[in-house]
């Protein structure tokens, strides 16, 4: 059956859909959706439902849902609360659908789940009951739970990451959690790396290799061979250890993509104004700079943690969005790039979906 490729874009002012056929040469933009609410993540679940999560300065956090391809939307935050004596939740940072459950990562950092398609939510309280919680500190982007990594076959097992708290794993459906930060530096605190407090920017897993985790961190790019128990720094060979997003090739768990940025005190932008994506085909042992078609002069743009994605076609397309409203895409695994959209609001998230046309 013919496929349609979608790039789902969450922005400071609403959600948008870029769509194309499998050739991915010509793109059409739809939106804005969700009444232009600030949208931190925008996904299409396996059953075809669109979900967008964010938070509005007036009306608080909510998860939007469309079952008719964006024609109509509802929103709900029923149960998205820590209670009347606890801090208010300001926004949704991450959505993940897996095994019939929809997860939401929120700010201040915590995890919620919905088993009725986003109508109601329940707090996965075990994470905030972790003894480290009183010492959790926010990063520059806030105390946000931004990564939710589900296991492909074990519904009780998942990993989450928050800034600047680190990575946690549960193997009992969220009742108990353990830190998974060994080997990850935290150069912004003195002494040896702590048990928690690392500033993870994006955590990823490949479903074919569920013990292989990758992360782009404030202080390096890392991989783990054992579900996060030990991490190895992959930064040598990259022009900067700093960046926000990371994606994994859908058909090759050894192939990963990052977008190195100038350091945290140097603007957090494309290095020297030269836009580039970096790819490793050997799990981070060596890296290649991919830049054909990307602006190479005066491109002082930033790509935020959720704003890169890769589609699942045989030759995957790679996409990223900038905080200044451009979407770039490659239909050939990052070798050649084109500008797919410009003049959008500040882009906070990019997700890719392949659906029946």
């Amino acid at each position, binding site marked *: 059956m013919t496929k349609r490729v979608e790039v789902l874009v969450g922005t400071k002012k609403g959600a948008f859909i870029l769509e194309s056929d499998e050739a991915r040469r010509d793109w059409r933009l739809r939106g804005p959706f969700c*009444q232009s609410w600030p949208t931190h993540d925008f996904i299409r679940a396996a059953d075809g439902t669109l979900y967008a999560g964010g938070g509005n*300065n*007036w*009306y*608080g956090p*909510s998860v939007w849902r469309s079952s008719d391809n964006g024609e*109509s939307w*509802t*929103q*709900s*935050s*029923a149960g*998205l*609360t*820590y*209670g*009347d*004596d*606890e*801090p*208010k939740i300001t926004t949704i940072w991450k959505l993940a659908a897996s095994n019939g459950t929809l997860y939401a990562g929120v700010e201040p950092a915590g995890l919620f789940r919905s088993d009725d398609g986003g109508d109601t939510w329940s707090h996965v309280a075990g994470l905030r009951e972790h003894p480290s919680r009183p010492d959790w500190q926010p990063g520059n982007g806030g105390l946000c739970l931004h990564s939710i990594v589900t296991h492909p076959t074990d519904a009780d097992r998942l990993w989450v990451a928050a800034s600047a708290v680190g990575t946690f794993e549960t193997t009992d459906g969220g009742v108990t959690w353990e830190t998974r930060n060994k080997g990850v530096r935290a150069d912004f605190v003195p002494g040896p790396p702590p048990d928690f407090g690392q500033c993870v920017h994006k955590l990823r897993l490949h479903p074919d290799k569920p013990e292989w985790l990758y992360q782009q961190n404030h202080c390096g790019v890392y991989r783990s061979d054992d579900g996060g128990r030990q991490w190895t720094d992959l930064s040598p060979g990259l022009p900067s250890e700093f960046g926000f997003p990371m994606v994994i090739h859908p058909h090759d768990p050894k192939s990963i993509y990052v977008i190195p940025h100038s350091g945290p005190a140097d603007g957090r932008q494309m290095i020297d104004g030269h836009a580039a994506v970096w790819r490793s085909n050997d799990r981070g042992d060596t890296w290649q700079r991919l830049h054909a078609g990307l602006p190479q002069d005066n491109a002082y743009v930033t790509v935020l943690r959720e704003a890169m994605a890769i589609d699942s076609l045989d030759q995957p397309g790679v996409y990223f969005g900038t905080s200044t409203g451009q979407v770039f895409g490659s239909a050939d695994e990052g070798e050649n790039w084109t500008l797919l959209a410009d003049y959008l609001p500040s882009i906070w998230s990019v997700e890719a979906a392949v659906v029946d046309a």
Partner: protein
Amino acid sequence: MATVHLPRSLVTLFTDPPPRHLQLPSTSLGALVNDLDSRWPGMRDRLVEPGPRLREHINVFVDGERERDLAVPLSDASVVHVIPAVAGG
């Protein structure tokens, strides 16, 4: 019956949206929020944050006076305006 005026940005969040202007038998601001929520489920979450208290950037005026306390009483003659705070960006 208190007279209530709601902002467009609020009513359009609901599939079967409430009218912008309506009358409710509520006897306090808190009761008004609950009455709205019972008719349009989810309305309370949009207006009230943990505490419970009115959301920081939701202004409510009762007979022209800005009120923040959900216990403020309402009468049949009360006129309530719900107005999002001025914000930019």
